[in-house]
């Protein structure tokens, strides 16, 4: 880690927590253990994500932060030989409830991936994909959703004249904002972001971060990031993971200015990780 990561330098700006209040345990993770085959990836994680806030997961590679994120919309179901203990509830309801279809869970929990992954379709079709698979056929609704989502993703002005062009012709930053637009088109409640800026240049990163500020008015956002400046800039609360355990979880200000655990302090000051 370069020295600029040191919390004492002025380059890290800690955002003050916003005033509005929502449900404090909107996403509630309780004693959550997770296994890939025999390997234990997460160990007794307990953590609450408040409504309409941004929570950042930080920690060194392999610490389990992405695994936890991918459990929130059960993307880990695609992997063979997984097992979990404990429970995760969203707005009071368990995501492992047998009566809850995983598809309807994923419609409520949107996801943006590390590598932008637009479909080889037009920009328009990419954005409305989630609505199409829900069975929406009404052109007016689709058009409206497309424009709203692209506006929210700050991409509308750049692509409004070429909605029918292939999404693969966009730049890297535009593609990632398109993926955000796609993830919010069906108005999910939660947005999961798995290192959304790791493949982007600083300007594109800045745009996405600005976007996160605006999106948290409507969505509860969980973001996994390797960049501590980013965690400091965008999040209200930060969780630090190490070797599958949750070491510390507090307001971002507290984590970066005055961490209570020595491991957290060592990590954010760049002494390991």
């Amino acid at each position: 880690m370069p020295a600029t990561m040191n919390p004492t330098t002025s380059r890290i700006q800690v955002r003050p927590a916003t005033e509005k209040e929502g449900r404090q345990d909107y996403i509630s993770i309780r004693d959550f253990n997770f296994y890939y085959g025999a390997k234990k990836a997460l160990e007794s994680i307990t953590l609450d994500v408040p409504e309409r806030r941004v929570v950042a997961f930080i920690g060194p590679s392999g610490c389990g932060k992405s695994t936890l994120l991918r459990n929130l919309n059960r993307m880990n179901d695609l992997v063979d030989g997984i097992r979990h203990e404990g429970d995760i509830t969203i707005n009071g309801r368990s995501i492992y409830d047998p009566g809850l279809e995983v598809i309807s869970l994923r419609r409520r929990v949107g996801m943006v991936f590390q590598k932008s992954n637009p479909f080889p379709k037009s920009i328009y079709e990419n954005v409305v994909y989630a609505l199409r698979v829900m069975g929406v056929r009404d052109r007016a609704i689709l058009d409206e959703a497309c424009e709203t989502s692209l506006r929210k993703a700050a991409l509308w002005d750049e692509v409004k004249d070429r909605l029918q062009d292939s999404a693969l012709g966009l730049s890297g930053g535009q593609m990632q904002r398109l993926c955000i637009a796609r993830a919010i088109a069906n108005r999910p409640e939660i947005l999961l972001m798995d290192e959304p800026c790791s493949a982007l240049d600083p300007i594109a990163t800045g745009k996405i971060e600005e976007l996160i500020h605006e999106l948290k008015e409507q969505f509860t956002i969980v973001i996994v990031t390797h960049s501590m400046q980013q965690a400091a800039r965008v999040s209200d609360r930060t969780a630090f993971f190490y070797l599958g355990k949750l070491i510390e979880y507090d307001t971002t200000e507290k984590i970066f200015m005055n961490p209570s655990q020595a491991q957290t302090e060592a990590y954010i000051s760049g002494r390991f990780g």
Partner: protein
Amino acid sequence: MAHHPADSATPKGEPWVWFTSLGLIVGLVMVVGLLGLVLVNGFAVFWAPTVPTVKLGDGTTHIGHLAQRRIRPGSPASDPRYERQYQVGLKEVNGNSYVWIDEKKVTQESFDPSVLGLERMENGPAFVVPVAFVDAKGIRLEASQAGFLAALQAEVAHAAEIREQLADINRRQIGEVNAEMESLRIAQRRAEDRREPTQAIVDRLAKLDARFAELKASADKVAAGISSAKLEARDASGRALSLPAASLVRAWEPNRMTFWERVGLLFSRLREFLFDEPREANTEGGLMPAIFGTLVMTVFMSLLVTPFGVIAAIYLREYAKDGPILRAVRICVNNLAGVPSIVFGVFGLGFFVYVLGGSLDRLFFADQLKYNNNTPVLGTGGLLWCSLTLALMTLPVVIVATEEALSAVPRGMREASLAAGASKWQTIRDILLPASAPGILTGVILAMARGAGEVAPLMLVGVVKLAPTLPVDGLAPFLHLDRKFMHLGFHIFDLGFQSPDSDAARPMVFATTLLLIVLVVCLNLGAITIRNRLRARFKGASF
């Protein structure tokens, strides 16, 4: 200074580069050689060479073009003796249209400019010295007079026109009447059997009978137009011949023609080859029914194999749980590609034709069987069973290609779709299948290439030497899947091994081979064009 091992003058890998490129060169030489051989031999069918008059020591004379020259088998190596084969034609006079002549016995070889080459409806070609053309009114036009050849060719063209009209009446119009009468007779027998009124059927049959008689009369009228004009000529040994002009297909002067006239004749023959029907036990005339049959069968096979293969591959790759059973199934599918094709033919005959076709006949064509002397409809070889047999044979190719293509779709695309709330099936349908379409088409291209050239299984399940009707025509339901059909691959086999005159058939074998290659290449190019279009759509997808 110590010598570092990396400084050695020749890089170690170099000889292997030469060795591997040698392998490629051998392959290329073989392909080019094959194509060249087929091309040269095939074009001999269409090209009109000069025709010498050959006099032998014993006084006999032959008129014919040189087909080949070789060392006489059995002649001593120290003193090889050559012999030549001439195509002399006039099978009905000479007994054989080819003769072998010992080169040493040839005393004189000259090119008589008046020699006439003739293609005929029967008995193969002829090379004669013309004497005169006698038209229908008996007016004689000597061969030496101006306008002789033009008058002869005009008469030949007139005869061709009449043949075409007759074919239209006999084949198409009378064919339609016959088809309807056939089904009415079955209906009549059924109605009589069930003691239902048959008056309407009888009336309609009477009408058709009248129509039939009418068509017959008009055919006779057209046939009466065949002129009695004839060509008087002499063969090589001077015997007088009288050839009715109506029996001629083409007449040319091989020793007088310019190069461009020969090219014109080549194209005229090429057109006949591509668009006409075969004559003379398939050794002459065109291959249209075989081209068409091969095309329809291959396209239909592709239409059958693609959905089956893709669906099977989707199940294997996306839904089936990995385990010993899945692995065993995969091994079986892959090994299916190695089963000899004739085995599929036997299976097709035993299962598709007899079991499946027989059952379908009993289910849907019971009346036809009962009232038409148990003549099977689907319970005999036909286009459908050929296509199905080949589809089964090429299934592994499509399954393997589709599985590869599905597994090559980037993980990110799959995850993005599922994360958007799509079900597994929606992900497969909307994302995976479009993205793997180019890979699937590669499999279909390979399947088509294999299927189009396959002969052995087809001989068992529905390909015939000569099919009078095409599998697609103007009679409902337009596509006749139960019909037997002709196929280029089988045509090659038939010409090469089953022809009564193997010498005459040999150039046709090469020409047909050339055509088969061209057809397969065209089909593949079509599929490759589609694939490249699809690829262009997904170009730039980076995951």
